[in-house]
């Protein structure tokens, strides 16, 4: 009996227990002359570090989606998306396996320090080096790679990274939804046979949806890309959502066609198929068809090509989640109103392609169809469409809150 108790104690000592953290890693940032530290945890003997904190210290722009628990890191031309339990990480030029897999611990995403040193730095144009025995991580720029970093005097002092207090966890827990009423100002959008304008309908829809969501769930933060009749360029709408670090982006539109008989409701997500050039270019890079070393950045088109790959990468990470949201919106709206269900579709939307969050584009009905134009004029109809979308968003939120839990 004593033997059993003893062995139990023994196991307890050597098993990775729920202790958190397991220790701290000192960080010396040669770019900002900052000294700080981050916590680490040990998983399978590997030290794991909170990647969001680390990337912020290194000066990368960080997007944390509190709903899907995905982290997007951006610096120079590099974009990397990481998610708990997803071992495969797309680094633009290639895909690597992260071992141990990224893990969500205390609502922070942890990745192995080896991954940070060997892969992350390179992809973000940084040089990380780690001295295991001292638990010390140094950060330098990529061109310092071959230099003995600690002996090198700093050649320049770039401004320190902006880490605003507002982006700390307390506000992060508040789910942010950006609603984008399409068109506006000089751009009327589609116009119905009796003169109803898309820009007016979608602005009203957006306002209704905002009000409804705020009433149903006061913890939500809802922001509109425009709240009046003025023109907003497409790229500004997306960068607005990215800037606000929105968790969901919903673009509201009404449809149009040459055929006046065309009718119905449909929801779009960004298509992966339209970026088949991206896949081809990635394959070409992997196969060494475009040799980055040999070309040495002399050819302009090579640079453009790589940027194209990187620019397209981030949004592709969210397609799965966007499709899921599309499904809920389709169900939510067609349940509320009597309308032809055209289903879920995909296309290469300008306003969605750079969105760093799950994003959808709703086409509520055909304003070019006389019957549907009449419906779109009706406040009751708009209210029902908005409530269908609102319910879908709340269900989407609830489903993530159920499934994305803590791993430890």
């Amino acid at each position, binding site marked *: 009996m004593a033997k059993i108790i003893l062995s139990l104690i023994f196991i307890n000592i050597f098993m990775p227990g729920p202790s958190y953290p397991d220790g701290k890693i000192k960080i010396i940032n040669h770019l900002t002359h900052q000294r700080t530290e981050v916590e680490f945890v040990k998983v399978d003997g590997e030290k794991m570090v909170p990647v969001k904190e680390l990337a912020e210290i290194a000066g990368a722009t960080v997007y944390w989606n509190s709903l899907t628990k995905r982290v997007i890191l951006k610096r120079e031309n590099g974009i990397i998306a990481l998610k708990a339990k997803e071992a495969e990480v797309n680094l633009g030029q290639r895909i690597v396996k992260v071992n141990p897999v990224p893990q969500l611990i205390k609502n922070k995403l942890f990745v192995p320090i080896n991954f940070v040193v060997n892969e992350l730095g390179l992809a973000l144009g940084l040089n990380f080096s780690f001295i295991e025995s001292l638990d010390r991580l140094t950060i330098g720029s990529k061109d310092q790679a071959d230099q003995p970093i600690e002996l090198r005097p700093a050649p320049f002092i770039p401004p320190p990274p902006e880490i605003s207090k507002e982006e700390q966890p307390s506000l992060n827990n508040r789910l942010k939804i950006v609603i984008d009423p399409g068109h506006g100002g000089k751009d009327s959008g589609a116009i119905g046979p009796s003169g109803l304008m898309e820009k007016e309908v979608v602005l009203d829809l957006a306002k209704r949806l905002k009000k409804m969501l705020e009433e149903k769930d006061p913890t939500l933060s809802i922001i509109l890309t425009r709240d009046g009749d003025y023109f907003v360029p497409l790229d500004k709408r997306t960068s607005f959502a990215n800037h606000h670090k929105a968790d969901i982006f919903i673009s509201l*539109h009404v449809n*149009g066609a*040459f*055929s006046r*008989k*065309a009718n119905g409701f449909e929801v779009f997500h960004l298509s992966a198929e*339209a970026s088949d*050039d991206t896949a081809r270019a990635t394959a070409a890079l992997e196969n060494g068809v475009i040799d980055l070393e040999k070309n040495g950045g002399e050819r302009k088109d090579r640079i453009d090509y790589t940027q194209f790959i990187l620019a397209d990468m981030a949004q592709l990470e969210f397609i799965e989640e966007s499709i899921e949201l599309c499904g809920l919106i389709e169900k939510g709206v067609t349940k509320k109103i009597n309308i032809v269900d055209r289903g879920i579709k995909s296309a290469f939307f*300008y306003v969605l*392609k750079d969105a760093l969050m799950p994003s959808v584009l709703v086409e509520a009905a055909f304003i070019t169809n006389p019957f549907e134009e009449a419906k779109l004029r009706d406040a009751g109809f708009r209210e029902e469409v908005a409530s269908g979308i609102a319910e879908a968003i709340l269900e989407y939120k609830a489903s993530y809150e159920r499934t994305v839990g803590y791993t430890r």
Partner: protein
Amino acid sequence: MSRSKKKWLFLLVLILVAGLIGALFYLKERKGGESLIRSLLIPAEEKVAISLYFSTEDAAYLAEEKRDLPKEEEVGDQIKLVVKELIKGPASSNLFPTLPGETVLREVYIEEGTCFLDFGQELRDNHPGGSSGEELTIFSLVNTLTQNFSQIERVQILIEGKEVETLVGHIDLSSPLREKKSLLAPPPTSTP
């Protein structure tokens, strides 16, 4: 032949030629006159079968309509002819146009498998809008050209000689597009 007779004959030939030229000019201005002139001047065997893609009634798909068009020596001229047929719209009453009748194709360029179609502002100004309407316009052009011209892999639409973000606010036109097969009308039994 007397001198006066010769004079009369010369005058007659002159009138005939002037009349013929006048008739040609008249026909050219008339709708469809150009193709009539072509069919008059070009032998019947110099035709090429082209598949044009127009909108279905529900504006959910593109459907094929075959048309015999005069064969052109230059690919660029052939493309212009095909796009003009798309602008004319479908002959079938089941199908719907994808381009406004006012559309003007300014120029066509081909560069390493990419065809650039330069349209005037009319295409944008007369477009009904909507994601579906816009997508059908774009891919009726893209699918038609990639289907009929083996040397064309991708199509980029320009407006007034310039690259544009979108046509009417939805689909990204900032880079060349490939054929979108999922827009082709499925046979009645198939699943979406």
